[in-house]
């Protein structure tokens, strides 16, 4: 479903992605971790071409992202993305945050979009906040709304960029629960996170990045107990001793 083939990306002189290659099947949940600045966000943002690459090839759902003829907007509509800082539209009520794109992009009627949106809000456990503004919600609630907003487009792939790292500990759980449910329903997910409990519970694979390279790409059991690369072991010992 998602294939990276020797992907290279530069920010001016800075080489941020170095020969990144991997393949993700439909229904797979992949957790990406690594030190700060290792290129995790950049890699994730390449999947829906928020960032363009300089060399290599990315194919998502059979669409080559580099090909000038590819309909990127159409592809993006099928890839949901959740950001660290939620990025909800502050001028719109929760419900309107959810129905904007389905109406404008898919041409769904307001009634149908509202119906779907209310079901999704129920699913993430905040249907009672449908008419609130984002600023009236807690961080955890905002992030759940952001997940529901992405799901409202009925995506085939969901991308998460550190969805819980701006949240207080008690709110992290409510967001992770929603993500676990989603994983169990068979959604294809790439999740950049340092929540190793989440990785253990639902990830099929863990990708570890350092300085723009994929260092490890393993099943969680293997990654946690017998990571081959010393950088991965150092990273793990740091992050696990934190918890």
């Amino acid at each position, binding site marked *: 479903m998602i294939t990276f083939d020797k992907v290279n990306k530069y920010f001016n002189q800075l080489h941020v992605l170095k020969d990144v290659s991997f393949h993700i099947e439909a229904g797979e949940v992949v957790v990406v971790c690594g030190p700060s600045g290792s290129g995790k966000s950049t890699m994730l943002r390449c999947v*829906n071409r*928020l960032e363009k690459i300089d060399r290599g090839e990315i194919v998502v759902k059979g669409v080559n992202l580099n090909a000038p003829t590819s309909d990127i*907007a*159409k*592809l*993006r*509509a*099928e*890839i*949901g*993305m959740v*950001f660290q*800082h*939620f*990025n*909800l*539209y*502050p*001028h719109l009520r929760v419900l309107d945050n959810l129905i*904007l*794109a389905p109406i*404008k*992009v898919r041409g769904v009627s307001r009634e149908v979009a509202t119906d779907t949106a209310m079901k999704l809000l129920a699913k993430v456990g905040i249907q009672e906040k449908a008419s609130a*503004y*984002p*600023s*009236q919600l807690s961080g955890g609630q*905002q992030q759940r709304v952001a997940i529901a*907003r*992405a799901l409202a*487009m009925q995506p085939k792939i969901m991308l998460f960029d550190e969805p819980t790292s701006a949240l207080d500990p008690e709110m992290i759980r409510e967001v992770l629960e929603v993500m676990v449910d989603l994983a169990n329903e068979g959604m294809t997910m790439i999740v950049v996170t340092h929540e190793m409990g989440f990785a253990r519970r639902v990830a099929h694979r863990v990708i570890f990045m350092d300085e723009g390279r994929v260092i490890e790409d393993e099943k969680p059991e293997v990654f946690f107990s017998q990571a081959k690369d010393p950088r991965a072991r150092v990273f793990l010992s740091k992050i696990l001793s934190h918890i």
Partner: protein
Amino acid sequence: MSGASFAIVQSLRTERGKEWLWRLGVLLVVIAGAYAARDLEWGKVAASWQFLLKGLGRSWLLALASIFVGAVAAFPLALARVYGPTGVRHAATALIETVRSIPELMIIFWVYFTLPLVIGAQVDSWEAALGSLSVIAAAYLAEVIRAGLYSVPRGQIEAAETTGMSRLHIFLHVVLPQALRNMVPALIAQLVALFKTTSLVYAIGVMEFLRSVTVINNTLFAPYPLYLILALGYFVSCFAITRLVRWFDPKYQLVD
């Protein structure tokens, strides 16, 4: 302290109490001001009230017309400067920055004295006033709009992009509504400034408020009451503009 006075002191600590205290203060200042001004030569200027009011009306007309024309022109200018292709962007930038860096009076003089030579047609003072004030309003309002557009965080646009929305839809439904709300404080400041700028066309003989007051003063010589009226006229007008814009500003809170 007795119970009653204690209750009064307590109630003054609340938000409402503070609000009333503030209003009382303003009222006292106004009364003191009126008392101090009671001996000015009001009788002398009273008969001119219609003339002065007409002057103020013309100032409002100039302000509203130039702001309207200016705003209509400012939108494409700002859009060109923010989103336009390189050539268009540079042209819009050059235009805006040129107008903004020239003293307003200079622009008024050019339109009044130089433009007729260029176009070979008569330009009366009223036309010159409207034209020059509109150009000034366009340049300054374009900058207010541009600042508003830039105030929308990049993440908002990215969030919309990831849903596959088109650039036009993103602009209309995500960027513009937030930009309009964010530009309210700067807009108020700019509209107030533009209102005061209308007084400059005094120099080309338009009988707006400042000129009306000056003309009356030249015949009656009663500068104290007249300049007090002048100050009050501009104060009330600018205050009204502030309130008017705020009234259009929908109540909402920002995250991020």
